[in-house]
């Protein structure tokens, strides 16, 4: 009963935090997909400097814990440009996630048989047209489940933004627990919020996957 009361009473604050978390996650998704696409294009490029840069990027980004990356970006950027914590968190989460998205893209591209590329090129289609019209649409189907999984990871990872003072969902729960001396209650409640979000995303992912399966 007490838990239920706490759940209801905390909802305005937590929903506000949730909206920040959703915004942060959405930005992370958009920018990590863009960055990931650029990195994979560089990685697969025939220009050695590009592919070497991409290899280095992947090694560095995947080799650093998210929280360390976030601190480096936060204190690094804030000391040069005037950006708020939210922006710094969005950048850090996007960079972190982009390495995984790039690898997801690469496995998707590799799943398309090379004969497809040859057939397309033999029709006079350029590299770019072959990628966008033949390879990408097929790779997308392979990639969607992994991409949704990465989105779920990003949603949960966004809690780390609380360490650099972003007022998102987890930060709100931290505040509530400190104010009430009831950490278990509020961390349990905030876990329910994350669970609900992940549940919704999984449900949506299932729909998307079935949509792709239906076509051919």
């Amino acid at each position: 009963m007490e838990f239920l009361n706490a759940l209801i009473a905390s909802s305005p604050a937590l929903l506000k935090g949730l909206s920040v978390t959703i915004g942060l996650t959405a930005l992370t998704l958009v920018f990590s997909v863009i960055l990931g696409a650029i990195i994979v294009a560089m990685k697969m490029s025939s220009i050695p400097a590009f592919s070497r840069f991409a290899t280095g990027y992947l090694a560095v980004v995947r080799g650093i814990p998210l929280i360390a990356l976030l601190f480096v970006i936060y204190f690094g950027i804030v000391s040069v440009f005037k950006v708020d914590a939210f922006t710094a968190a969005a950048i850090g989460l996007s960079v972190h996630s982009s390495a995984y998205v790039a690898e997801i893209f690469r496995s998707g591209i590799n799943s398309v048989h090379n004969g497809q590329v040859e057939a397309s090129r033999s029709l006079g289609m350029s590299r770019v047209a072959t990628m966008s019209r033949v390879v990408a649409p097929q790779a997308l189907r392979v990639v969607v489940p992994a991409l949704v999984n990465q989105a779920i990871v990003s949603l949960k990872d966004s809690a780390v933004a609380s360490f650099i003072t972003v007022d998102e969902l987890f930060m709100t729960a931290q505040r509530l627990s400190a104010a009430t001396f009831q950490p278990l209650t509020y961390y349990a409640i905030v876990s329910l919020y994350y669970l609900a979000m992940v549940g919704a995303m999984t449900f949506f992912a299932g729909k998307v996957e079935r949509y792709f399966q239906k076509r051919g």
Partner: protein
Amino acid sequence: MTQIDGQPRVRITGATKKFGDNVVLNNVDLEVRAGEVAVLIGPSGAGKSTLLRCINGLERLTSGTVEIDGVRLEYRERSLNHMREHVGMVFQSFNLFPHLTALENITMAQVVVGKRSKSEAHDRAAKLLFRVGLGEKANSYPSALSGGQQQRVAIARALAMTPKLMLFDEPTSALDPELVGEVLQVMRELADEGMTMVVVTHEMRFARQVADHVVLLADGAIAEEGPPEIVLDAPASDRARSFLSKLQADG
């Protein structure tokens, strides 16, 4: 047979191709005139497919030149694309785009490369599908077609670009025996209409009936070439004789 004029459509000079230390083609010269059907035969590993793939630049020659209608093949992206617009290719494994219907497979490059309007490309695709006997399969995805049907769609896809040269890389080797005939029939009709064709195949009957020029490759070099009745029935070289007698032993 077909009308053949004297101008060479394809001229390959001194073609050499190495994969590492492995010499796949060794100084091959070959000419295919406009309207001619050239059939490349020979044991596996002889370099037939590699030679064919060098014609449209899918493989890069280590040395030597390829000319199409007197224009030398260059490996820059733009000149390759431009050349390939006019050189159709049909693959052993069909390589239809699985995410597109039969009709869309045939329209895509017409619109993207050929700069035709959607409706123009659509009309042309429908006509070509009808011509290869698949008029009713326009909206089928490749996964719903038999191998023979897929290969006929692939031929239509290449023809949609109005090529002046068609390359066939073992077009019937991946097919069940009962489906081979329908593909060869389409190729035969194409030859009768005067299409210039270079065909890598193991179908000796097709070579005998349709080829103007048979080229027997062995160990990366031309062992014998000439009209089918000479190369297939009265070969001069030992290499050709042993290859052909092996084929006969296999039935």
